[in-house]
């Protein structure tokens, strides 16, 4: 108490009348979350303005109401500007004073954001009090140039076998997750966050999950799951729910990128997930209509491509000179009936370094994750794949491709020769082995060992339909009885001759054990 009074005294004593000179405008009209403002002739695009209620109020009224409503200038017009109201538009009225703040829209970033849930302005929405020790960063920034970047060379393990083996992602990469509603896109993203727990703390990426246009209850569920798993210790959630203004949903990904860059620029690794950019595009379309911008294809404004490209450009692996940090981006796009040739999907596919394509058909058939391996690629990640994973994964993709052909052919053939039957069984085993339940990402050494077992025929003694359960048993077995082998793979990131021998011994023992338990 006393210290507060002392501080007030000091502040007042130090008070010399300072003359503030500011450019102000007056709200001409408001509606649909947009304010038309007279004046502000020198305002620039993306500048932040403050709707200042204190101008017309007494001191007492002014300090009683602490709401600060900001606006983002998006249209420069002949006799004024048009700005989106960032917050409750009922706080903005005709005739209200608007102050230029002289800075582009910025949000507070810092290490202290970790574990928190914030809105796109960086304000906490988790009821855990203010976030201290932050610095303001503009949310739109020029991306790093080629000279400041290094090739992707460190893996970002998702803990999902099918992805880490066949569509590997590297730190600093942009990999799109695309598919219809309800096919497991969010699940892949969240499992990837969960999996970072098995990374050593020193190199564990800070994860940023950006929820755009989602139901609040769904995001709350995700935060609860992450908390329960201990994953909020290294995660930040940015949320702009479906109920929030379109401007928030439009801004949220940029806020996520800005938060991620803070960590990247300290030489750390960060992972940002945009769930999803389809909803961001819809929010942008809505804003553009209100701002009377001419609509283009599918009624999206003409620069929606640029919107996504400048966002995804910010993912990077920085050069050693720049500290070597990285920002990996996993944007999500929701398709309608699997149509990846629509406007927004084709745009984002062309901007990213590959895509993980999920199919409703596969999902409904019980293949989970429902990845369409044939149409999924990662264009840069394989150079970051560990030797261990490279060694075991080479064969899978080819075998699965052949299997898919045979499977199609199978529908017409009445009886199959023994060789074809064998190959179909093998393909089915491989597909089954790659199934993985939600919320169970695997450390990469376990993935490598299990896939090693599959490609070397260790599941051949099981019925194809039993492979999934056998695979789970094998995981348990390795955890219990072959811990050193797993640790060695984890440490050396490779499977050398000696390790291979040890692994084979363990796998033989597993087969023997399960065989005897079958007969018993």
């Amino acid at each position, binding site marked *: 108490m006393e210290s507060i009074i002392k501080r007030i005294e000091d502040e007042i004593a130090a008070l010399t009348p*300072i*003359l503030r000179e500011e450019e*102000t405008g007056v709200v001409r009209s408001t509606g649909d979350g947009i304010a038309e403002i007279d004046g502000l002739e020198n305002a620039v695009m993306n500048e932040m303005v403050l709707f200042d209620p204190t101008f017309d*109020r007494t001191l007492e009224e002014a*300090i009683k109401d602490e709401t600060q409503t900001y606006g983002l200038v998006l249209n420069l017009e002949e006799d004024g500007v048009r700005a989106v109201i960032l917050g409750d538009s009922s706080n903005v009225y005709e005739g209200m004073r608007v102050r230029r703040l002289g800075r582009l829209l910025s949000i507070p970033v810092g290490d202290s954001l970790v574990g928190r849930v914030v809105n796109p302005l960086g304000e906490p929405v988790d009821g855990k009090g203010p976030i201290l020790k932050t610095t303001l960063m503009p949310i739109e920034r020029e991306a790093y140039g080629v000279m400041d970047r290094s090739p992707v060379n460190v893996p970002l393990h998702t803990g999902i076998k099918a992805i880490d083996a066949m569509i590997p992602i590297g730190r600093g990469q942009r990999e799109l997750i695309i598919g219809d509603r309800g096919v497991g896109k969010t699940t892949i993203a969240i499992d990837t966050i969960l999996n970072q727990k098995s990374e050593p703390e020193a190199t564990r990426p800070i994860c940023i999950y950006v929820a755009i246009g989602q139901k609040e209850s769904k995001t709350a569920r995700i935060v609860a799951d992450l908390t329960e798993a201990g994953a909020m210790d290294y995660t930040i959630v940015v949320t702009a729910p479906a109920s929030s203004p379109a401007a928030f949903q439009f801004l949220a990904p940029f806020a996520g990128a800005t938060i991620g860059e803070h960590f990247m620029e300290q030489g750390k690794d960060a992972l940002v997930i945009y769930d999803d950019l389809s909803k961001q595009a819809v929010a942008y379309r809505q804003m553009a209509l209100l701002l009377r911008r001419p609509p283009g294809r599918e009624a999206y404004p003409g620069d929606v491509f640029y919107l996504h490209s400048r966002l995804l450009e910010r993912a990077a692996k920085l050069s050693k000179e720049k500290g070597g940090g990285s920002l990996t981006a996993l944007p999500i796009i929701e398709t309608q009936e699997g149509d990846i040739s629509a406007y927004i999907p084709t745009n984002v596919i062309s901007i990213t370094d590959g895509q993980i394509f999920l199919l409703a058909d596969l999902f409904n058939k019980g293949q989970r994750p429902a990845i369409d391996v044939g149409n999924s690629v990662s264009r840069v990640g394989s150079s970051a794949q560990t030797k261990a994973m490279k060694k075991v994964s080479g064969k899978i993709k080819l075998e699965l491709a052949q299997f898919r052909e045979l499977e199609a052919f199978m529908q017409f053939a009445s009886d199959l020769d023994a060789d074809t039957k064998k190959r179909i069984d093998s393909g089915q085993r491989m597909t089954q082995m790659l199934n993985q339940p939600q919320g169970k990402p695997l450390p990469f050494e376990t993935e490598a060992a299990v896939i090693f077992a599959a490609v070397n025929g260790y599941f051949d003694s099981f019925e194809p339909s039993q492979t999934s359960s056998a695979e789970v048993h094998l995981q348990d077995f390795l955890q219990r009885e072959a811990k050193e082998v797993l640790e060695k793979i984890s440490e050396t990131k490779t499977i050398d001759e000696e390790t291979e021998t040890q692994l084979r011994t363990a796998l033989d023992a597993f087969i023997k054990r399960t065989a005897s338990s079958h007969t018993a």
Partner: protein
Amino acid sequence: MTSTFFAQALYNLAQKDDANPKQLVKKLEEYLARKNRLKLLPSILQALRKIELQQEKLTPLVEVANEQEIAKSLKEAVAIGVHTTKAKVNPSLIAGWRATENGKLYDNSAKRSLIEIYRKITT
């Protein structure tokens, strides 16, 4: 475009000391009717409103916290380039003055300082 010219002419006439705004609008109406261009009236009035707003923005306005500070405040305002001989009393400023002119706000009031101190201490 034509409406803007009419509006500007109307505005200029209205600025004269002996001007009678109602009379002016009536005369304009008659004139337009004679020329068969009555359709222009709404857009002329709209353009006039725009000019008025523009002028309002350009016109310097000085507000002072109390009567006693008027002379001193006007002098200080002139020093920073706001030239006017009239000031409005606005007690909510508590002390000091503020001026608006041509889209600029010059705020020298105690109210603003106190709000800033309050925010600084409470956040």
